């Protein structure tokens, strides 16, 4: 039972354009959502997060949107840069889970120069 799903395994985008990564969840107890970025042979690194009391959080070129009614969140990267080429994981948790994260399957992003 996949509680967090990233339905697009890969995404290709031109440098300077917007990258939009999507994530859906099924567990209505989730109240905190995070995005991680992973380069090959490295561990994932924290990118941006959002609490369920908000619907948007922005940090530089990265913005996360949360639609609680649809149980959907998205990550926007604008403008996309070649260094953004990586695998992006969506993750979710709730306080009673003890901060244990449930991850999606990841989306591989390729930014073409």
């Amino acid at each position, binding site marked *: 039972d996949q509680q*967090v799903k*990233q339905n697009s395994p890969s995404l290709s985008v031109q440098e300077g354009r917007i990258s939009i990564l999507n994530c859906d969840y099924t567990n209505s107890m989730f109240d*905190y959502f*995070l995005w*991680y970025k992973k380069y090959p*042979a*490295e*561990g*994932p*690194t*924290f990118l941006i*997060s959002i*609490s369920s009391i908000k619907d948007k959080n922005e940090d530089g070129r990265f913005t996360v949107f949360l639609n609680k009614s649809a149980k959907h969140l998205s990550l926007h990267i604008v403008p996309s840069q070649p260094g953004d080429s990586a695998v992006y*994981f969506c*993750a979710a*948790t709730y*306080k009673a889970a*003890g*901060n*244990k*994260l*449930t*991850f*999606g*399957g*990841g989306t591989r992003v390729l930014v073409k120069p």
Partner: protein
Amino acid sequence: GAGVSQSPSNKVTEKGKDVELRCDPISGHTALYWYRQSLGQGLEFLIYFQGNSAPDKSGLPSDRFSAERTGGSVSTLTIQRTQQEDSAVYLCASSLISTGGVGGYTFGSGTRLTVV
């Protein structure tokens, strides 16, 4: 150290042998997690240590898997009688549990385990 350190970075073992994977978390981080990533898959939760509380072992796939965290610091994940399906990248992470909410994890670079 400055980050989460995992050793070895790569391990090739024969089917049926036991392996031990080590994680050295960031000093002062109270929480430690083990995840694994099989080829083409997402990150699968294995086990979670928080301070002196009993660990959350709900993600361990079988009784061949066990983990310890000694002195609230270093952790060892042990896989007994390894099988080919155990081949994966095993990732360790640590975090500070803040009263204000969830902190992001800091992951190590992982141990790539190959069972032949």
